[in-house]
């Protein structure tokens, strides 16, 4: 495959982008087009499938094959597309409501089956298109139009759900952080099997500021950690804070304090089969912990679309009948002369 054969412009459609000014979807759209260009997969070999919601309008803005489907069902439609036409690189765009509420069942089963699709989960923790109801990722007590006194339920944490469904690839980025977004989107496409990229996204209208702790480069330096395979888990503007294992959990330490050196710091291994540490990293929250960004887990496993084809070939090799007529003439038949 020739890299850099395309530019982001090759992936832009002629449609006017209609998201609210300042919506995080704009930034993600640009990052996705840039990632696609860098991946070098031609637009006609790419399909973007979405459900319903603000972010699900995204396919209309792509100059690829696209399908804006129905609420919650993007994963099921993307699965069918990938299994039927494995040559196509299939992206799924879903919001937190689309992917985790109405589409929760399809989301977990796509991961369990490990269909080779790239799921981009835009998590703004709110229903935007229906104008401001709490979503399955809104925190307990969240006040919204449908929860004027605060919610009395706990949210899903997407990573926890993904790992519970045997997710083999999980990455996270912040909408406005284009370099990181482009990198994780590319990594998710290169991963063979179902991948999830959780995009922490700001809804300027109904949930503004939900990502304020991560909104700028400076804030992210302090409040987030960029995980890289083989690199020690260091963060902070001076790169002097790190993560170590502490009993069953993780702990933030400072280099040079209490004799801590870089050797004590955990080194990231996204390819480790055991997801225990991946889970711990993915669930870190401020203010005590940095939010993990980058590729948290990336493990190979047989993927469904390939296995389906392989099984067909296997059975074809074993059985002599390869057309319906050949098959119908086997077994219990009789002739009338």
């Amino acid at each position, binding site marked *: 495959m020739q890299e850099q054969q395309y530019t982001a412009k090759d992936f832009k*459609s002629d*449609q006017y982008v209609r998201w609210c000014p300042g919506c995080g979807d704009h930034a993600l759209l640009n990052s996705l087009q840039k990632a696609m260009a860098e991946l070098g997969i*031609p*637009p*006609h*070999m790419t*399909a973007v*499938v979405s459900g*319903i919601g603000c972010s699900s309008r995204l*396919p*209309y803005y*792509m*100059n*690829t*094959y*696209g*399908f*804006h*489907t*129905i609420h919650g*069902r993007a994963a*099921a*439609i*993307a*699965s*069918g*597309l*990938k*299994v*039927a*036409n494995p*040559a*196509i690189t299939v992206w799924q765009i879903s919001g937190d409501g689309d992917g985790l509420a109405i589409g929760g*069942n*399809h989301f977990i*089963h796509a991961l369990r089956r490990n269909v080779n699709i790239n799921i981009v989960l835009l998590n703004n923790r709110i229903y935007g298109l229906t104008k401001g109801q709490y979503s399955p990722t809104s925190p307990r007590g969240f006040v919204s139009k449908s929860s004027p006194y605060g919610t009395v339920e706990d949210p899903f944490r997407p990573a926890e759900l993904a790992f519970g469904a045997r997710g083999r690839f999980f990455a996270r980025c912040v909408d406005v952080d284009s370099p990181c977004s482009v990198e994780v989107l590319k990594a998710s496409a290169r991963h063979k099997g179902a991948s999830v990229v959780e995009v922490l996204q700001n809804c300027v209208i109904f949930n503004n500021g939900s990502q304020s702790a991560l909104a700028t480069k400076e804030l992210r330096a302090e409040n987030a950690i960029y995980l890289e395979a083989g690199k020690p888990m260091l963060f902070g503007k001076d790169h002097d804070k790190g993560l170590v294992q502490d009993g069953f959990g993780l702990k933030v330490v400072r280099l040079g304090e209490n004799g801590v050196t870089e050797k004590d710091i955990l080194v990231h291994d996204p390819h480790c089969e055991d997801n225990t540490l991946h889970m711990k990293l993915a669930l870190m929250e401020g203010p005590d912990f940095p939010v993990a960004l980058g590729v948290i887990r990336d493990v190979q496993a047989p993927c469904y679309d390939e296995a*389906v084809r392989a*099984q*067909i070939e296997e*059975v*074809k090799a*074993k*059985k002599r*009948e*390869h*057309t*319906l*007529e050949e*098959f*119908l*003439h086997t*077994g*219990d*038949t*009789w*002739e*009338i*002369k």
Partner: protein
Amino acid sequence: MANEHLVKELDQVVVRFSGDSGDGMQLAGNIFSAVSAVLGNDISTFPDYPAEIRAPQGTLSGVSSYQIHIGGDKVYTSGNKCDVLVAMNPAALKVNVKNITPQTIIITDADSFTDKDLEKAQYATKDPFTELGINNTVIDVPITSMCRESLKNSGMDNKSILKCKNMLALGLVCWLFDRPLDHAMQMLNTKFAKKPDVATANIKVLTDGYNYGHNIHASVPTYRVETKGEKRKGIYRDVNGNAATAYGLVAAAEKAGLQLFLGSYPITPATDILHELAKLKNLGVITVQCEDEISGCCNAIGASFGGALGVTSTSGPGLCLKSEAINLAVIAELPLVVVDVQRSGPSTGMPTKSEQTDLLQAMFGRNGESPLVVIAATSPTDCFDSAYMACKLALEHMTPVILLTDGYIANGSAAWRIPSLDEYPEIRPPYVTPEMREGWKPYRRNPDNFVRYWAVPGTEGFMHRLGGLEKDFSTSAISTDAVNHQKMVVTRRNKIEKVADCIPLQEVLGDKDDADLLIVGWGGTFGHLYDTMRTMRADGKKVALAHFKYINPLPRNTEELLRKYPRIVVAEQDMGQFAGLLRMRVPGVDFKQFNRIKGQPFKVSRLVEEFTKMMEE
């Protein structure tokens, strides 16, 4: 009954095997129908089984039956009341007393008529025959003990031995109808190929049953159903409606040169379509057993978008769940075949019993103006042709097609001449061609039939976006323009109406020129309505039958033919859904109705009686 041995020649005969749901009645029935078909008899079968896998043993709710109608000439239904009833226990006898006539020969297992058995089947007295008013010839055979005796040296445990009881009954019935056992033996050897001991045991019991019949032959007559009439030459096999549906889908995919993709979720009585297709991996079929009904439909839509022949199979409750996704295929104008094997409703209803109550759901059960093609298969073997046509119309007209079958024809089987695919019309989907590339839009249409063109992902230069939002007629971009919406609604309707150019005209059978009564039916009731018409004509009445397979659009000559007859009765297994649809499509015609929704096939005698009364009014 005479006491000397008789061989009776019959034109047709109905045999019903019934017993506990663990007694193997379905297998016995199945083998008997195959054995008869091999001799050239025509067959039609009706498995009638409970929803419970193993209801409490010996109870009324656990009775499982399998009815076979055998004819020397063509048979159209699985038959009315039976000529021979095998009742393996008192519960089976009680449940089936409504299915016998005074002439029916009853074979019972003498060993299973103990006080305890009678109690389980809720008899009030110790004499079930008197209690039920049965005065028939009863061949009372100690089936259980004979089976034990037959296999006492087999080394099998008691439980395994008793599993062979059905073969003793089958052997007796084979003797009664003078059927050689070799084909049955061959079937058992194939079925138990991996368990040769079990095959040997079954064959031994089968043979002993047959010989027992021989030894008592003085007390009952035996029957012979001779093959008559010219049967079409060819290779035949036994096929039920679900298998025929599966094969029809494969045939269409092969003819169209497309990958067949089934997205499905298990549901009675449609699951066998998934089973059949899952076996056919050697024919390149992809089956995905999805996480739910919605996913089954959505996977199929995704596959169609990807350039495959996307199919989903289900029954009524599943069709409810798929509605929203089907509507997506309507507005996205993608090919999709939805097979709905109708069962009794509403809700879970009676899962193993048959009805025709999903007609209007298939027609209208979606939001918005949502036209699509509806086809109803008319018999087990017609499921093949109907499935083929459903695929052809879906692919060539870029539309979802709902194929309605029902539990009765899905599980019922018949002898089927294996067709050659050369006999079937070509399937040519409207693919984009390179010369369309300049300025191409996904909703640009063929002006003759309003069908849009199909650009499969992977095709260079035809990238496009589809979706559930209304699109502009010319630019294919999202549109909320008022005039455009009206235009798109009308266009989608016209596109489906144009399908009528590609389906046959409606045929009228019987006294089509001068009938005093036109019987109108649709779907799986064809056999019963046809027999009804024949019976009434034999009685000197002027009767015709118009049995519809194409429901939407209706054949072009529908209105003309319906306005021709002085009396019309629409007979269906619902409360008048097709009659209602016809009133809407052909206003001003007086449609009388005959509606039965008992979960059981029509009874021809009852139809004759009712229709005759209507003719006298």
